[in-house]
């Protein structure tokens, strides 16, 4: 596997926690990989199976959702629903020839900037270990595909989004 493999990872981030945690990580000037591309959701409960599949189908090397700590969802159980859907996708992926480890569910609070950075690093390492998504095609943007799939539920990102810049310098 090429050492220069730079994965493209889609993160469905809850507006109340992980998205704010990413901001905090930025303000704290924490290092985390530039591999992650965020899509802001009002709650990870809005995440659907098809959003994850469309991202992977378009070649995303990994996809994860980052929602509030369990028990602290702004909408009570949205993060628990997200976990169930991700577990379901984990079952579907081997059928189509992809590793279930390419999707994951994480939980964090808005105050956990370092946790956001740790998760981004950990997941990136995991995906680097798995190697590129074999479905990746030249000229297809996984982030654009994922945004399109989730267009009815995603929130507008302030442009340029903090993650688009990569790690804070």
């Amino acid at each position, binding site marked *: 596997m090429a050492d220069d493999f730079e994965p493209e990872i889609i993160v469905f981030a809850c507006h109340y926690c992980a998205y704010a945690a990413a901001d905090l990580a930025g303000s704290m000037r924490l290092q985390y990989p530039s591999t992650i591309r965020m899509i802001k959701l009002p709650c990870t409960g809005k995440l659907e199976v*098809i959003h994850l599949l469309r991202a992977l189908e378009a070649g995303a090397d990994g996809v994860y959702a980052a929602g509030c700590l369990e028990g602290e969802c702004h909408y009570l159980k949205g993060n628990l629903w997200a976990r169930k859907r991700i577990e379901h996708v984990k079952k579907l992926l081997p059928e*189509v020839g992809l590793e279930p480890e390419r999707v994951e569910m994480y939980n964090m609070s808005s105050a956990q900037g370092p946790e956001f950075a740790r998760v981004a690093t950990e997941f990136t390492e995991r995906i680097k270990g798995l190697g590129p998504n074999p479905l990746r095609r030249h000229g297809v943007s996984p982030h654009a595909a994922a945004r399109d799939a989730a267009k009815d539920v995603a929130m507008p990102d302030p442009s340029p989004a903090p993650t688009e810049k990569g790690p804070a310098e």
Partner: protein
Amino acid sequence: MITAERKPFDEILTLVDGHKKVLVAGCDTCVAICLTGGEKEAEILASELRMKAQADGREVEVEHTAAIRQCEWEYLDMIAAKVEEADVVLSMACGIGIQSMAEKFEPKLVVPAVNTNMLGMPQEHAVWLERCGACGDCVIGETAGICPVVRCSKSLMNGPCGGSHDGKCEVTTPEKEEIDCAWALIWERLKAQGREELMEVTRPPKNWSKSSSGGPRKMVKEEAKPV
């Protein structure tokens, strides 16, 4: 309602093997309500099929659509153009919808992506329990509104058998979950209704000729037929 479960992915792959243009057709009535074959599930299956084809290096076009009700031909007109373009239609409707498609678009190849399994009642969100066998000769007026034909593992007309224990059947589900003994339920509800003497009546052999044993059935409402 009619419930169905998606077939194993490998079986679906076999059914569409060798076809270049696949249309996954959902149905937005019963199978959508039981979260198996609505537009959402059709989109998921189409995405999976595309990923699998790409992973295997096969050139296959997979699209999805959904009809409001595949069992009624007027709704099939709305998706006819997409059906015409496809080499094979992978229907996610119940067995009725799949056959309705196959008949309407003959000789188009229409194959099932689901196994239609029962006439079920939603017990709670995402859980269904079999409630009716469409036997054509309903007896539940005498059995406290509980169907012995499908809810008793042995379809006893005069239960319970000796395998009833603590209100549970001797049979478990394939997942080894306990099943309520229908006749224990009937006994308890008849008692609650003050009609337990009905348990002492011997119900005669069932007339299975009114069920599918009698051959394919047909129902006609003369009074409602178009003039």
